[in-house]
């Protein structure tokens, strides 16, 4: 039995398979399927300073090999999270990552501050959500934006700070370096690519928000490329995600440079995917006589 434990910015995960923010809620629903301790960690639905209603429906569209969502950060606010959701989640025996979002750097900072006094294991700064009008993506698509928010939050956050990057950029390496230099302890990528579908019968965008975030297997090659490019630019650990649907994909992202992976969309077709991916990795490591899963990280041999 190989060692599946990984450490990211000082936080220990029992295995490198983490539920991706927004796809797993606060864990309660999926805990009907298996104990959450089967996962390395859970990244919670994006949390904001105050409760947010989210975008009007429809919020979901299917695309070839993927899906669009325009949920738009519907969440009960950080106080509710700390009082109602976190205590339960902390008892489940898995690492808890609080994914946070905001419209202004000040918002982000206040959320981070509040979380600093809780049992949250890590804070994931979502500067890349394409589904909110104010804030969100624009912070994530320029180096200056990334630096500003990261540096500000860094000063208010006593937890390990992971910055989640948007793939809607020309040079992810540059953005990754900006986050690192502004004080990020880790990076996670990729968030969703912006996409759109139109119903040709009604001539209306399928999503009420017109555009939404693309996730699922379709984006996997973009995720591998970006993790690889970021890995070569920064020294801090990277949590990779985007279209992982089996243990092979997880191994591929780790070879590209990921210390751990998050999985989202695949949960919708197979809620047991995280368990299968952890098992698959374990078997793969045993068969190849690799003792620690962390030995995979960054081991791609580029041409």
């Amino acid at each position, binding site marked *: 039995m190989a060692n599946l434990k990984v450490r990211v910015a000082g936080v220990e995960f029992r295995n490198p398979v983490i539920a991706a923010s*927004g*796809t*797993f*809620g606060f864990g*309660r*629903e*999926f805990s*009907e*399927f298996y104990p959450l301790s089967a996962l390395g960690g859970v990244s919670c*639905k994006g949390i904001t300073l105050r409760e947010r*209603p*989210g*975008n*009007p*429906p*429809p*919020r*979901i*569209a*299917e*695309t070839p*090999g*993927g*899906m669009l*969502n325009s*949920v738009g950060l*519907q969440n009960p606010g950080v106080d509710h999270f700390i009082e109602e959701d976190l205590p339960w989640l902390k008892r489940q025996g898995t690492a808890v990552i609080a994914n946070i979002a905001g419209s202004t750097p000040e918002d982000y900072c206040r959320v981070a501050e509040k979380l600093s006094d809780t049992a949250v294991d890590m804070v994931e700064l979502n500067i890349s959500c394409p589904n909110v009008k104010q804030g969100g993506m624009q912070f994530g698509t320029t180096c200056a934006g990334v630096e500003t928010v990261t540096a500000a939050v860094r000063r208010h956050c006593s937890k390990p700070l992971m910055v989640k990057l948007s793939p809607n950029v020309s040079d992810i390496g540059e953005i990754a370096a900006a986050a690192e230099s502004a004080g990020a302890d880790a990076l996670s990528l990729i968030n969703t690519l912006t996409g759109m579908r139109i119903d040709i*019968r*009604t001539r*209306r965008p399928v999503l*009420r928000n017109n555009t939404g975030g693309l996730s*699922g*297997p379709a984006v996997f090659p973009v995720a591998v490329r970006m993790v690889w490019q970021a890995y070569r630019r920064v020294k801090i650990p990277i949590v990779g995600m985007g279209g992982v649907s089996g243990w092979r994909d997880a191994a591929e992202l780790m070879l590209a440079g990921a210390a751990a992976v998050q999985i989202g*969309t695949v*949960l*919708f*077709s*197979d*809620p*047991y995917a995280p368990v299968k991916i952890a098992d698959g990795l374990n078997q793969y490591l045993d068969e190849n006589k690799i003792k620690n899963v962390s030995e995979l990280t960054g081991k791609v041999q580029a041409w």
Partner: protein
Amino acid sequence: MKQYDTRRCAIRRKRRLTGDVFDFTVDAGDLAGISRAGQFAQIYVPGKTLRRPISICEADPENRALRFVIQVRGEGTAVLAGLEEGDSFDLLAPLGTGFEPGDTSRRALFVGGGIGVPPLLGAAKPFGGNAVLAAGFRSGDAVILKEDFEAAGCEVRIATDDGSFGRRGLVTELLGATEFDVIFACGPRPMLRAVSRLADERGVPCQVSLEERMACGVGACLGCAVRLRGAAGEFYGRVCRDGPVFDSRSVVWENGTERRAASWQT
């Protein structure tokens, strides 16, 4: 046992009801015992990113079976409709709230539009002769499950868009002076809104089953939002978990989502 789970379920029986509507009975094991009418299953479609939500038409715990009636509406339902006896469905079920029949000695009105009729069957059966089904279809050859409701003792009234069967016009025009104590409805949103108004006018409770595009199906992703009215004001609830069956008074009917054509007309 778990509240819901995934299961590979062999198709025991398949029948074609109309040109594009198929009736499946599947071996669902213990899932049949915990399922009730109005709840739904998320059915996996090979090659697709998302499962397809399909209502549980009837649950038969004794035979460990579930019944689904599926209309071909796009690529996913076409794949499902193409499966044959011996093939299987990969179900995630039972999901969501079901209908709450309550006191079955009440006079119950069931209102269904097109493919909205099947989820009503399991709920109507216990009412037997106390139930009236008012169902609307595109045309006579789209009528489904009439015999099933009749066999359960229900009175069946049918309206069609083109008048080729039953009365021509809207399903709400079938009611006349009929009296009832409770309404159960499933169908396109404009129909549900009309039924909801009727319930308000008559002062009877009304349970409506809503549709929305879904991802997780279990309440985690917030993909299937529906505008609801709560104690603290309006908010987005989840069709998959808080519904799909809602008290019609909790639904905010005018919120710009009135964009969909009546589903039996598409």
